[in-house]
Structure formats: C-alpha cells, structure tokens
C-alpha cells in the first residue's frame, strides 16, 4: 500500500521547480483557488459589516442617551421636540402584526403541509408546492398595496371602528405571505416521519386522520415548531406591508384596530425624510435595526437548533 502513494507523489518530486508548463498551470490553479476562497470570505465580511455598522452607531447612541432611556421609557418620540426613546411601543407594534400574521399562517400552513404530505396524490403534491411558493415570491410592496387598498376597506365593513391604518389588515396579509414558509418546511418535517410509525398506527386499527393527528404530527412537532419560528422571524423583519398599511404612530397597545408603528416601519419613516449622518435621529434607525437583528437572529438560531435536533431524532 505505501507503494501506491509513492507513485502518486513521484511526478511532483521529479519536476524541477519553477519553469515547466505544469508548474505554471499549478500556479494558476492556486491563484484561482485563492480567488474562490476570497469569494466565500466575502460572505463572512458581509456579516462582519452588518455587525460593525450596527454596533458603531448603536454605541454612539447609547453613549449619548444611555440604555436606561431605551429600556425604561414607554414612549418613542425621537422625531419630536420632546424626545423619548423607549423602544417598547415599536416592539409592541411588531409583536402585534406578527401575532396577526401567525394566527393566519399557522393553521393554513400546517394544514397545507398535512394535505401535501399525507393526503394529496403524488401528482397533486407536485403542483401544490411550487404554486404555494409563488406566494412567497410576490414583492412585499404588492402585499402592502393589497392590505391598504383592498383588505382594510373590506374589514372596515365588518369592524366599524377599524382605522384606515391598522395592525390587523397588515398582519392578516402578512400571514398569507408567510404561509408557504410554514407549509414547505412543515411538509418536509411530516415527510421525514418514518413510515413504520404510520403502519404501526394502522395496525392498531387507527384510521387515516387519527393517525395523522395523533402519531405523525406529534412525531414531526420539532420540525413544525422550527418552521413556525422561521415564519415568525420573517414576519418580524417584514417591512413594506407594515410601512404602508399599519401606520406610523408608535403606541404601546394590543389593540389591532388602531394605527401602530413597527420597528421596520420606523426605519422606513426616518429614511424617507432627510436625516443627516451623525444626528440622533439618524442613529435611532441603527439602534432599532440592532434590536431587529438580534431578535430575528435569536429566532433563526432557535429554529435551526430545533430542526437539527428533529433531524437527528428521525
């Protein structure tokens, strides 16, 4: 066996270093490999860039204002003369729209997943998934238009004291947008449940639907939970729907009928105006961005861990 490795190593040993065409070729190979490596390092630099930009501006904000005013105030009015920097109204707005969204997307997404994985014929399934994924590919500005111009007027007929800008209609439309995320990932999870479990349930006399609800879905719970968390994270980071349809009035409320402002919508609101760099208003969008980044990162990591544990279990 050692002989074979000697044979493989022979040509390079026999070569005089430097000037042969092979040496030139291997130099090119090494240069290109380095270039390709640089490309993947670029993705790491992107992350570093995000962290750095957010950290620098957030740090200057905190030095000027202090973390106390950020966490222990209940009003967010950095654009007014009487400035308050309590971030909770924006967080509440984000939670509210995300809750509305998940109230739509959770049942629709999980039921769709069950349909595609357990009930539909293979041919139908082949059609369902790409069709549902169209929903996630529609630009969010289109959903924003939909929420403001179509859904809100319809809802106002049913709920008379619904404001023109409100968390409800933005959240509901966002729910439609994130449904395919849950449907697609939960379907993968259901699909990964071993066939033996279903067969064991059938052997015990259970029919199809009880098997799905009491055996398959519980077995896939880890994967389904992971899909829901990813969907919530997407809802929290979603911008245009809430910027258009949910309003620009930060307030600490759980009432979905009134105008609110989400973290993302605040960043858009400030960006639309002219804010010179270095002002406090300019820095607040990075502070809100940092909070948003940390919130979504925490959810993404949790989801990733859940999905990994689930994959190992099945």
């Amino acid at each position, binding site marked *: 066996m050692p002989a074979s490795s000697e044979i493989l190593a022979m040509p390079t040993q026999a070569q005089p270093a430097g000037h042969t065409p092979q040496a030139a070729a*291997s130099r090119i*190979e090494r240069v290109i*490999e380095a*270039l*390709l490596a640089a*490309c*993947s390092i*670029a*993705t*790491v630099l*992107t*992350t570093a*860039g*995000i962290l750095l*930009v*957010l950290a*620098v*501006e957030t740090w200057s904000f905190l030095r000027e204002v202090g973390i106390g005013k950020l966490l222990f105030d209940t009003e967010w009015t950095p654009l007014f003369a009487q400035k308050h920097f309590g971030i909770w109204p924006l967080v509440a707005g984000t939670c509210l729209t995300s809750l509305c969204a998940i109230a739509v997307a959770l049942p*629709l*997404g999980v*039921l*769709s997943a069950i*349909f*595609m994985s357990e*009930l539909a014929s293979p041919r139908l399934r082949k059609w369902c998934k790409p069709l*549902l994924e*169209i*929903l996630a*590919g*529609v*630009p*969010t*500005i*289109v959903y*924003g*238009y*939909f929420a*403001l*111009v179509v859904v809100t007027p319809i809802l106002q007929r049913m709920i008379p004291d619904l404001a023109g800008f409100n968390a409800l209609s933005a959240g509901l439309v966002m729910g439609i947008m994130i*449904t395919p995320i849950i449907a697609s990932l939960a379907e993968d999870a259901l699909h990964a449940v071993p066939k033996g479990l279903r067969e064991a349930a059938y052997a015990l006399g259970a*029919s*199809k*639907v009880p098997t799905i609800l009491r055996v398959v879905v519980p077995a896939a719970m880890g994967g389904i939970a992971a899909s829901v968390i990813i969907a919530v994270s997407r809802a929290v*980071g*979603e911008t*245009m729907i809430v910027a*258009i349809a949910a309003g620009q009035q930060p307030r600490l409320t759980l009432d979905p009928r009134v105008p609110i402002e989400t973290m*993302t919508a605040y*960043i*858009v609101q400030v*960006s*639309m105006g002219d804010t010179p760099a270095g002002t406090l208003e300019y820095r607040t*969008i*990075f502070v809100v*961005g940092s909070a*948003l*980044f940390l919130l*979504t*990162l925490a959810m993404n990591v949790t989801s*990733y861990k859940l999905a990994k544990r689930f994959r190992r279990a099945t």
Partner: protein
Amino acid sequence: MSGDQARSHTGERLFVLLAALAVALPLLVLLFLVLAVGHEGAGRLSFDFLTSYPSRHAERAGILPGLVGSLWLMVLTAVIALPLGVGAAIHLEEYGRRSRLSRFIEVNIANLAGVPSIVYGLLGLGLFVRTLHMGRSVLAGACTLALLVLPMVVLVSREALRTVPLSLREAAYALGATRLQTIRHVVLPMAYPGILTGAILALARAIGETAPLVVVGALTYVTFVPDGLDAPFTALPIQIFNWVSRPQSAFVVDAAAGIVVLLVTMLLLNGVAIYLRNRLQKKIS
C-alpha cells in the same frame, strides 16, 4: 358501532376537505389580489405610462425612471453578486474538504439568508453610502442588493453543483485532469443550467425589493434617468411605494398600474428561467 364508523368517516372527509381548503385559500387570495390590481390599473396602462416621467398630475404620471432604475440595479447587481456567489459556491463545494472554516462559512451564509432585508439597507447606508462615499447612488443601491441576494446565489449554485455526480469528477481526475480543469470542463457545464436558473430567480427577487433601497436613499420623485454609476436613482417598487403613500385616490390607480408592470417583469424573468432550464437540460441529456 356502524353509526360511529359513519360519523368518523364524515369527520375524516371533513378534515381532508379542510386541509385542501388550506392550500386553496391562500392561492385564491393571491388570484383575487392580482385580479383586483389588474382591474384597478388596467385603465392607466399604456405605452405613455411606460415612457413618461412622474408628475403631480396622476393621469399624466409615468414610470420611466423607475423602470430604467430597476434595469440599472438588476444589471449591476448581477455583475457584483453572480461572480462572488458562484465563486463562493465552487469554493465550498469543490474545495471545501469539510474544513472548520468552510463549515463556519456555511453556518454564516444560512444566518445571512435570515437577516431581514431592511438590515441590509442599514448596512448599505453605513458602509456604501457613508463610509465608502458612494452617496445615495445607483451603485450603492446595487451593492446593497448584491449583498442581499448573495446568500441565495450561493445556496442555489451549491445545489446545482451538488447535482453533478461524483463519478464524473473521478473520471476526469482519472484522465489526468487537474481540479481546476475538472471544474471548468466537467462540473460547471453540467451545473450551468441550475446556476443560471437560480441566478435569474435571485435577480427577480432583487428587483422586487423595496425596503433596503428606501434606507439606502432611493429617491421617490425623479424626473430623469440615471446617467452613470454615481447618479441618484429610483426603482419600480420605490415609485409604487410613493404612489401608494399619497392620499389622492388617483395615484392609487398609478400604483396599481405600476404593480402590473412590476409583476409582469417578474413573471417574464421567472418564465425565462424556467425556459432556459428546460432547454439547457435537454441539451445536456
């Protein structure tokens, strides 16, 4: 007993119906949305709408700067993101060797894919607009969008590279080809349709993005088209956002017409992607 069975049978049917409805409902909502937008905007759609500048008069406003701006952004984004993304994918798939570094890069890319698009906007504002002094230019916008779609380009390219059977690489090595020659003459030609399709889909996503461009500083009222990399710019979705945000209902019609243009553009791009994939795949097999 038989009554119980019959009841549970109806229950089963109801459940199946409910699940089928869960798939159909979002799709019906989408269909309704597209029809509503089309109905609203159809009256404004004309050749003039495509070739006019925005105006204070809703019935005379057009979408030319947005259309041209989006085209600029798309081409520049492609030029920046595709070499980087495909290069990174080749590095990770073909040179990765399961090293700790490449696993770290993988986790990092998965995380980047989950970062909200508006945070990329903040990155673009802090890095490209301010630190690198690009200003609120079309180049700064394209750089931001390029970083935004980079994880997606890497992911789809890796998937395409992974479909190339290992045995083909081994055959090339056995014939004395180097790693680079194998990649250039065997792996890339086979993975090409998949990479191309993924790239077009990523670009389609890029031109639908609004939030990062708002933060980077795309203008909302532009009466010129960009004439260079450092020119101020607008884009289709930004123009639509501007019209939607106006209180006068006449502009809502403009927004609807703009949305139709945006959706048709995206549909065309997706169609091209699917067509190319089918054609190129047939050629290979």
